[in-house]
């Protein structure tokens, strides 16, 4: 018979100290010579707001790994993820900005048995017994799956790593008072709204601090503290008296970054400086002329092309997706024959080179180690238009072994393993993507000036089909270019593209000084996702099909 008392007892049990564990019968566990003797608690690193006392964490990790091994796992890893999120919204109609917090804590174990993976994830606080049970069950799950036909899972080698890393930020956003945050956000909105009658500003700000603990049966043990700061700010202007249309413009400088509160301070200054132009852009977009369907040379600003690049190349080079591991969910990739395509498949123009990293300061996917303990390496996904690598994990890297060996490259993971929360089993984490800029110091305005007739697109929303092959989208604002000048805005313009054909039309890129970095939320399914950054420059792409957004057949 159970009762509320039992519930409370369980909660107290979850918070037991080491001494209590010994008293309640975990003596056997504590006394066993565990194969995983992790470093003293002093090296664990601080975990804010976590009930897990420093001394307990190595014991949890050891218990889980020991149990997984004992149950037949040839490899296992453990994660403890603790995240603190703070979200602010402020828009017309709200009297005052105020935050909403979300705190998560989770524990998970992944086990490999005969080429099959098992996974157990638990929200909340765990004890050593629970950790051991999770390890045992993860291996059991894998062993059950292994009763099927044989499957091979080779993990590319990686050095054993231990250590602690904290993402360098100037100001931990969680040390800033709520009053200061409310004042900053409120003042920003109010100041911009005062610039023009009828202007409305909507601001969303998300602050995140995450502690990630990882340990593996190989002996790796790392702790990391990551920050993600960013959001969005958009300006809306009233309806035009003649056209009846309102105008809208988003600020480019607020998207999520691997940064602290200093990012908000800097972005706030940048947005204030840009606000008059944002309002003018929004006002000027209210009397567009209808689109004429056809093919155009289009100048895309950095934000628009970053969005397109993120899916048509970024997602398309996720090796697990390319191999079909998302086929039953969000889809596959047109780059679906890696060993045949690497080194030969023409993704785009020779001017297109895209690299991937997880080390760029201030970027949203930057880490010291990925979620398999791999130090990510920078890799070139597209070299002069040719597909030359994919985003990989330890297992996925082994799928490309023939290619790497042929090119004298070591078979190692690119460091793209990741999970959003502890209860989210390991998948690929999008790295930071960088589009190589052009050799000349060309700006968006320069590209427009060099275009006799075409369109210029800023920002916007972009979508692709299940294979990332066919895409559509429209800019936040679309301008008409005539003789190198922006002569007015266009309504209803929908860009229709086919990924390789689109990128083959790339004829000019902006220069390095015009590169901008944007944070993106890479969603895998309806709610799980990870942050990463895309650095891009304005580009000119020729021969792009443009249709009427709302026109039917």
């Amino acid at each position: 018979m159970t009762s509320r008392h039992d519930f409370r007892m369980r909660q107290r049990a979850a918070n037991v100290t080491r001494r209590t564990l010994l008293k309640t019968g975990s003596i056997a566990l504590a006394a066993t010579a565990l194969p995983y003797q992790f470093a003293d608690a002093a090296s664990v690193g601080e975990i804010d707001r976590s009930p897990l006392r420093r001394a307990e964490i190595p014991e949890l990790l050891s218990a889980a790994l020991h149990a997984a091994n004992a149950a037949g796992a040839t490899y296992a890893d453990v994660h403890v993820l603790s995240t603190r999120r703070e979200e602010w919204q402020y828009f017309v109609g709200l009297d005052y900005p105020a935050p909403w917090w979300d705190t998560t804590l989770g524990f998970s174990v992944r086990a490999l048995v005969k080429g099959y993976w098992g996974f157990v994830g638990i929200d909340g606080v765990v004890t050593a017994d629970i950790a051991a049970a999770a390890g045992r069950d993860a291996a059991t799950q894998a062993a059950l799956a292994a009763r099927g036909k044989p499957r091979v899972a080779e993990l590319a080698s990686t050095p054993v790593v231990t250590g602690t890393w904290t993402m360098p930020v100037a100001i931990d956003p969680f040390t800033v008072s709520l009053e200061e945050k409310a004042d900053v956000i409120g003042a920003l909105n109010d100041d911009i709204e005062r610039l023009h009658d009828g202007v409305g500003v909507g601001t969303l700000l998300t602050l995140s601090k995450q502690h990630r603990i990882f340990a593996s049966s190989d002996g790796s043990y790392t702790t990391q503290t990551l920050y993600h700061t960013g959001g969005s700010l958009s300006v809306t202007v009233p309806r035009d008296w003649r056209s009846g249309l309102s105008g809208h413009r988003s600020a480019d400088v607020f998207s999520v970054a691997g940064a602290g509160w200093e990012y908000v301070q800097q972005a706030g200054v940048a947005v204030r400086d840009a606000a008059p132009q944002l309002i003018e852009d929004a006002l000027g977009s209210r009397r567009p002329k209808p689109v004429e369907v056809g093919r155009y040379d289009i100048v895309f600003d950095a934000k628009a092309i970053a969005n397109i690049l993120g899916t048509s190349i970024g997602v398309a080079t996720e090796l697990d997706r390319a191999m079909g591991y998302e086929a039953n969910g969000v889809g596959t990739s047109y780059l679906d024959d890696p060993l045949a395509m690497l080194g030969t498949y023409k993704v785009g123009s020779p001017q297109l080179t895209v690299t991937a990293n997880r080390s760029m300061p201030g970027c949203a996917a930057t880490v010291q180690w990925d979620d398999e303990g791999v130090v990510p390496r920078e890799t070139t996904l597209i070299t002069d238009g040719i597909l030359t690598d994919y985003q990989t994990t330890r297992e996925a890297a082994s799928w490309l072994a023939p290619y790497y060996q042929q090119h004298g490259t070591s078979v190692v993971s690119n460091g793209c393993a990741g999970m959003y929360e502890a209860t989210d089993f390991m998948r690929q984490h999008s790295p930071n993507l960088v589009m190589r800029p052009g050799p000349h110091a060309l700006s968006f305005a320069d590209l427009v000036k060099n275009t006799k007739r075409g369109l210029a697109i800023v920002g916007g929303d972009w979508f692709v089909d299940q294979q990332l092959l066919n895409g559509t989208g429209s800019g936040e604002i679309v301008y008409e270019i005539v003789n190198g000048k922006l002569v007015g805005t266009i309504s209803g313009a929908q860009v229709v593209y086919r990924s390789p054909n689109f990128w083959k039309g790339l004829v000019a890129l902006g220069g390095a000084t015009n590169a901008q970095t944007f944070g993106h939320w890479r969603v895998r399914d309806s709610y799980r996702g990870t942050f990463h950054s895309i650095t891009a420059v304005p580009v000119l792409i020729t021969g792009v099909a443009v249709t009427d957004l709302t026109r039917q057949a």
Partner: protein
Amino acid sequence: MSSLSNVTLSTAKSTAVWPRNACVPRSLLVPSEFLSRAECTALFEQIVGLTRGGGETYVMITSAWRGGTQWARSRVHMASETRTTSVAISRTIRGAWGAAGTTRLDAEGLQQAVRDAEQALLLRREAYEQLHDAEHEQAHDADALSSAPTLQPTLWDEATYRVSAETRTQLAQAMLAEADDAGLLAFGALHLIASGNATLATDGLVQYYPTTEVLCSVTVRDPKGIASGWAGVNHYALGKIDPHAIAARALEKCQRMYTPTPPSAIEPGRYTVILEPQATADLFAPVMNWLERETAELPEGPFGGRESGRSKIGERVLDRRLTLRSDPMDPDGGFLPYDTSNGTPYQPVTWIDRGVLRALAYDRRYALRTLHRETALPNPRAFRLAPADGVPTATLEELIATTARGILVTRFHDVRLLDMNSLLCSGYTRDGLWLIEDGKISRPLKNFRFAESPLFILNKVEAIGVPQRVFAPGRAYVAPAVRVKDFSFTGLADGV
């Protein structure tokens, strides 16, 4: 090769570490897979005990156990079990409110979440006191809320809950076997979920409902990547679905997509189409977001009237042979019987009756102020789109056989709204598209991009099929196959 017929859904001894419970709290030190009513109540009391300053406390608890088996390239690549628990706490004092969430159920975690909510509350000016008027109080009258009946649909299946990890894995192996033996690649997922969700408040609100859910979907592709077939469904009970049939259907669709000929392209344009139930539901789902009376009376959206304060209630919006209902007690389309965000019970409602819009959702404040009624009409976003009583239906085979020329659509991908007033949507076809000629499927087709409104094409339907449950994780959608004319395909989209 294991056969699904050899897999029995018995209460065999579980190989998982944690023995199953039957909504009963578990023993010391062994955590619940999900929270029972008693545990949720105790948790709520614990949270209330941590609050300071009076006012009201509102708590939404979501806890779930999920056992999943996923396969790709004809091999199970992940077998998992997760236990997720989250608590959302809202505090209100004199109209000012603050909220916070946590996945930590330990005392320290709960205390922190309560403090977070109260800190946010303090930041809000008491300008919100203007809300503390008779209307506000009436809108949150506990007596009125608690007196509204909560229906009791059957959403829990003990047999589903007791499916062991071993059985689940055997099912998955059986589901991929046939495609593997045929030299094709099988992909899929089988998830079994048991949840205990509660909404409680200090004004007397108490709602708790345990549910089970099965998510079963299969994709089969040929190794060259030129064909893909899919089938899937979700339901509260494993016994309500046929995993073997789902796997077989996905396999058949894939095979028909490349034999005897691979998919070919035809010109985009307007075509007569047969939408399978999944495709109908994919396209129709956005309509549910606009069944909101206040929005319609702005007027805004597809159900907005000709002037402010008016909606299209009483006007025909769909084909006269179609009816749209939401009913928690629907035997195929049942759903959680209350709005988890505020505890308001869902009642059966006919939104559209024989094509005529009869109802739009509203909250309690609107009900009191505008309609002078006590109770809200919340929108569960679950639906049954069905032929009206007495309207003849046809099987999918009959729909095909009576089509001179048309296109058969399995489902849509990435349906997005282009225009809120017409509900014009765009997206792509996916996982099975065929040309029908002279009553027969003649050849597979490459996919299309479309621009179409569910309200346009369902305004005049040629024929209607038998409604059936479709795949909508976390939701209950029941929709029929329909044959409609002049469906707008705007371009080729040759992704597979």
